[in-house]
């Protein structure tokens, strides 16, 4: 031993005191090692792996000599594997500092060591497991204290010492690897309690005490692999591979096959091949003798572990030739009482005959449940080209974390030898079925703490409008020209309400269609709040008529009803409740809206200036039975074409002009204040506000004023395009419910709430602000001031400008005949108060609430309703 090593492992560890001293040493070394770079770590990892590999033969000899189990030549392979395959697999793996980074998405992962690993090493694979765990610790910048099995302590410690010396020579801090020299239950428990993580390989008792220690643990469980041989299997390959696997280190790898289950049509062939290749089939007497020797009080007899058949037979009281490879006991019961059903960790196999593949699978499952091995390993021999379904069925049934196909399971289970994507490991996780926290082959990732640094990023946003928007007074017939000349449409379905139909509004459309030779039908039964029932009737009529074009003419109701009929016509299978499902992000919603436009082209033509439905992806429909309103929202509902022709709006009555005009104003203001507002929606919203302030009073007073009508039509569509993309806010949430509960016109309901909501939103210290990555701080006051200034409002500071802006809006309401309060509209106080709580809750739950810049409490909504009712704060 070098001087440094003497210092780093100063005393024999044989007591709690000396173990505590060792902890101090290892911890100091680990803290130093934690700052090593990836390059330094990789150099140490390599040097340690090389040294372990050099010592593969002496370590193998020492292990067999000390434990009296296993085969030297096979242990050489295990040592070699633990050094070489582990090194090769992890040599380029990043384990220090930043291990992953995606600058575009702003996410970074940083690997940190855990601290000290308590490594419990079994007697079956003492040197290879010690090499494996020490190398893993070195690669992950952890310290490690090894608790060897008393029966294998000398070889275990020697393996650890070789790795430690090589690591320290390559620059690792002295004392990073330590061990208990004189193992005892007390010291094992202490090391598990004091460490930062336990990596336990061993019997079920050891693993259980690891999990019970209170320290995070990665423990692994007992195996009991059954090899199912399907009728389609290559028997020669299967049998020789099974023998190779079973005899490897005399069967001490936990993934080794313990039983064979062969289908009956090939059973005899399998048996003959086993005999031909050197297996010995036990007679009944020998089987009984062996059963008594294998299990003692239900527990595996340690004396038979890792032994050759001739030795085992002698122990059981009978003789077999020296060159027998495996003892095979044919069995029928898969119950716990059958010794051959259990894990034997030696050169004994149980063998079962199955009726067919399904029965074989049942038996394999029964063995796992009755005799142990849940979570560990299963094995299947099969024609893997033509029997994919059986492989899938087998994989589906087995509650095991390794399902190996046409692979010797001992060497296959430890990975990287028979499948090169399967990570190499000497510690095989068994998942929750095996009482473990890990279900994979344990690797470096299980020994790291990974920190995720996630930087704030903004959502992708969008701006979408109908493919075609035509406008200008008198443009309707010109725009419809395209139906024939460009699109070659044949059958057109017109949706409208009875008033418009009776008053000849559809005539200009039907005349044009007739002129172009396009067949048409008119559905004129749309009601003011269109119901699902009437939409279903309309859709039925569509199915009969089979239009390739739908024209919805009217106010919001007719256009919304048209959109719903369009959906029902194209997708009768679609479920309304699904389509109306609330969502936070329209692009991440659970429900995928059906693809629209495959049967019919949709044209929306407004006859009033307000709803903007001709350019929005929204539609509201009422269930006539329950009175429930279903708001649908999806860009699939965006009309293909919008035609805005002022000729259709010239005769709108005063009440409609005022209510729909102020609705458009609220659309513009809510879209501008929305957390989803963008430059694209802002420009449109501001222009809409400017036009509405300037032209709405004139359009209201003098309906014949063409310019005022035309500008209002434009403003309404622009506001629609703004809120089609930025969405609305809590004013609309509240107006929807106020309208539904008390039958107020939608625009009037909005107008009554508007300035109250704006004052609520403008608060610079709201109780809760809107949640959206783009929305950084409560800036709604500034946003309203931008609107105010664009509309010519002045003042000495933001607050005064804002107040003057509210006054300008109030003045506009007066100018267009809107009353002050909800009460003024004749809503009974008692009725209003009775419905208030439910109405407030419903308003809170409205789809529009999500885009509001201030996230409202239900109680705040109620206060605003009260203020709107009485005209003052209550």
């Amino acid at each position, binding site marked *: 031993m070098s001087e440094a090593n003497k210092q780093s492992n100063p005393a024999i560890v044989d007591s709690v005191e000396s173990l505590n001293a060792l902890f101090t040493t290892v911890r100091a070394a680990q803290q130093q090692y934690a700052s090593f770079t990836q390059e330094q770590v990789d150099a140490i990892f390599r040097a340690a792996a090389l040294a372990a590999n050099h010592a593969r033969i002496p370590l193998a000899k020492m292990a067999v000599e000390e434990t009296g189990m296993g085969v030297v030549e096979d242990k050489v392979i295990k040592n070699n594997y633990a050094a070489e395959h582990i090194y090769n697999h992890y040599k380029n793996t990043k384990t220090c500092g930043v291990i992953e980074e995606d600058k*575009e*998405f*702003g996410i970074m992962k940083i690997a940190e060591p855990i601290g000290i690993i308590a490594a419990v090493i079994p007697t079956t694979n003492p040197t290879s497991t010690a090499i494996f765990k020490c190398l893993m610790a070195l690669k992950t910048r952890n310290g490690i204290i090894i608790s060897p099995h008393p029966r294998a302590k000398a070889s275990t410690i020697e393996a650890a010492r070789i790795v430690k010396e090589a690591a320290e020579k390559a620059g690792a801090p002295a004392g990073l690897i330590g061990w208990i020299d004189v193992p005892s239950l007390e010291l094992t428990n202490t090391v598990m309690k004091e460490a930062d993580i336990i990596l336990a390989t061993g019997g079920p008792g050891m693993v259980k005490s690891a999990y019970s220690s209170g320290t995070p643990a990665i423990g692994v469980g007992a195996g009991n692999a059954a090899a199912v041989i399907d009728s389609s299997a290559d028997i020669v390959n299967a049998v020789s591979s099974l023998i190779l696997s079973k005899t490897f280190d005399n069967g001490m790898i936990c993934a080794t096959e313990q039983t064979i289950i062969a289908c009956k049509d090939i059973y005899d062939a399998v048996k003959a091949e086993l005999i031909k290749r050197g297996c010995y089939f036990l007679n009944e007497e020998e089987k009984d003798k062996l059963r008594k020797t294998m299990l003692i009080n239900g527990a595996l007899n340690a004396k038979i572990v890792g032994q050759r058949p001739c030795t085992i037979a002698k122990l059981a009281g009978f003789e077999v030739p020296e060159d027998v490879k495996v003892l095979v006991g044919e069995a029928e019961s898969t119950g716990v009482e059958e010794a051959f059903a259990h894990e034997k960790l030696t050169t004994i196999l149980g063998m079962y005959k199955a009726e067919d593949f399904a029965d074989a699978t049942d038996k394999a499952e029964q063995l796992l449940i009755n005799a142990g091995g849940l979570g560990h390993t299963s094995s299947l021999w099969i024609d893997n080209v033509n029997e994919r379904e059986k492989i899938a069925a087998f994989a589906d049934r087995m509650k095991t974390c390794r399902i190996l196909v046409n692979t010797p399971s001992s060497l296959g289970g430890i990975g990287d030898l028979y499948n090169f994507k399967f990570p190499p490991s000497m510690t095989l996780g068994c998942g929750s079925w095996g009482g473990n926290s890990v279900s994979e082959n344990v690797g470096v990732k299980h020994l790291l703490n990974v920190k995720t640094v996630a930087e704030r*990023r*903004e*959502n*992708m*946003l*969008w*701006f*979408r*409008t109908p*493919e*075609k*928007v*035509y*406008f*200008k007074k*008198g*443009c309707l017939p*010109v*725009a419809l020209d395209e139906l024939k000349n460009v699109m070659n449409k044949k059958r057109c379905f017109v949706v409208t309400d009875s008033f418009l139909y009776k008053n000849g509004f559809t005539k200009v459309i039907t005349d044009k269609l007739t002129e172009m030779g396009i067949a048409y039908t008119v559905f004129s039964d749309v009601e003011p709040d269109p119901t699902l029932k009437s939409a279903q009737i309309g859709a039925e009529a569509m199915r009969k008529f089979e239009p390739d074009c739908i024209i919805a003419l009217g106010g919001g109701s007719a256009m919304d009803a048209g959109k719903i009929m369009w959906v029902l016509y194209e997708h009768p299978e679609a479920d309304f409740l699904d389509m109306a499902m609330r969502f936070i992000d329209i692009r991440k919603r659970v429900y995928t809206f059906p693809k629209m436009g495959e049967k019919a082209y949709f044209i929306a033509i407004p006859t009033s200036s307000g709803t903007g439905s001709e350019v929005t992806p929204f539609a509201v429909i009422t269930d006539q039975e329950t009175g429930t309103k279903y708001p649908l929202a999806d860009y699939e509902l965006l009309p293909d074409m919008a035609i805005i022709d002022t000729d259709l709006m010239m005769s709108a009555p005063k009440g409609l002009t005022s209510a729909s005009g102020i609705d458009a104003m609220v659309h513009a203001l809510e879209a501008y204040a929305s957390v989803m507002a*963008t*430059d*694209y929606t*802002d*420009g*449109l919203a*501001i*222009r809409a506000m*400017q*036009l509405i302030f300037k032209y709405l009073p004139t359009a209201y007073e003098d309906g014949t004023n063409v310019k005022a009508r035309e*500008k209002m039509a*434009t*403003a309404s569509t*622009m506001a629609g395009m703004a809120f089609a993309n930025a969405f609305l806010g809590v004013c609309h949430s509240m107006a929807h419910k106020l309208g539904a509960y008390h039958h107020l016109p939608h625009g009037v309901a909005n107008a009554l709430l508007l300035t109250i909501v704006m004052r609520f939103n403008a608060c610079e210290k709201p109780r809760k602000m809107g949640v959206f990555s783009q929305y950084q701080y409560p800036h709604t006051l500034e946003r309203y001031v931008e609107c105010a*200034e*664009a509309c*010519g409002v002045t003042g000495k500071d933001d607050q005064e400008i804002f107040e003057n802006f509210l006054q300008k809006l109030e003045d506009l309401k007066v100018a267009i005949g809107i009353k002050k309060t909800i009460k003024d509209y004749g809503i009974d106080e008692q009725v209003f108060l009775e419905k208030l709580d439910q109405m407030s809750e419903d308003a809170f739950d409205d789809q529009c609430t999500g885009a509001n810049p201030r996230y409202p409490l239900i109680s705040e909504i109620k206060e605003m309703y009260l203020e709107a009712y009485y005209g003052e704060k209550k």
Partner: protein
Amino acid sequence: MSMQSFLTPDKLYFKQGCLPIALQELVDVYQVTRVLIRTDEEMLHNGRLVPLTGALYDMGLDYAVNSESFAADCVILYTGFVNAAQWNALPEVPRILIPSCICGTFCRSCIGADMVILDEDLIPDEPAALMRNRILTHAWSALTGGNASDYTLSWAVQAMRTVFGGHTDKTALLHAFWLAQQAFWNAKVPGVPDDTAMTEEACEALGMTMEELTAKIREVSDEEQQYAATHFKKQ
């Protein structure tokens, strides 16, 4: 004039880093498998194509760059300049436009592309003075276009608000650029004579007199001149 209309992209997607998210629609909505990228010669050598080709590769799509023989079911134009002739020569498949700089310009058809993606990560840092003047020129010209409407005015004025508001950051200027392009190519239509009616409306919308607006425009133009004088002379 009996009818007016305007063109916008079927889908306009934007925000820094949005490229891979927007491109996902190629597969999810358009069922695209083979993408033809049209780009400028210099982009083949300066590494700026990598984020785009990388994203297509990650999505498992076949692609070719500037190929004449590649049978594509989607074209992505990643460039700063496209004229009508170039646009019309493209195959009749979904056309995605990704502007590669703010100092460029497109054509009317480009504005109606199936998808336009604006991602700051795909735009180089260009001198703010050049970008600002370029945007303003388009926005101003849009106001006098014979096909100007309240729609084009709202976009042009919004672009002007950004420029007059003193913004020099890439994000604000990228959106002002696209707004100005949308306004310009909708308002300026070949064969339709200029009309100055909208300039007064624009002044009102901006809350400025014509003199103030002219002075502001001159200011931005001077900025560019000054930049050019100090930077281009040295070369």
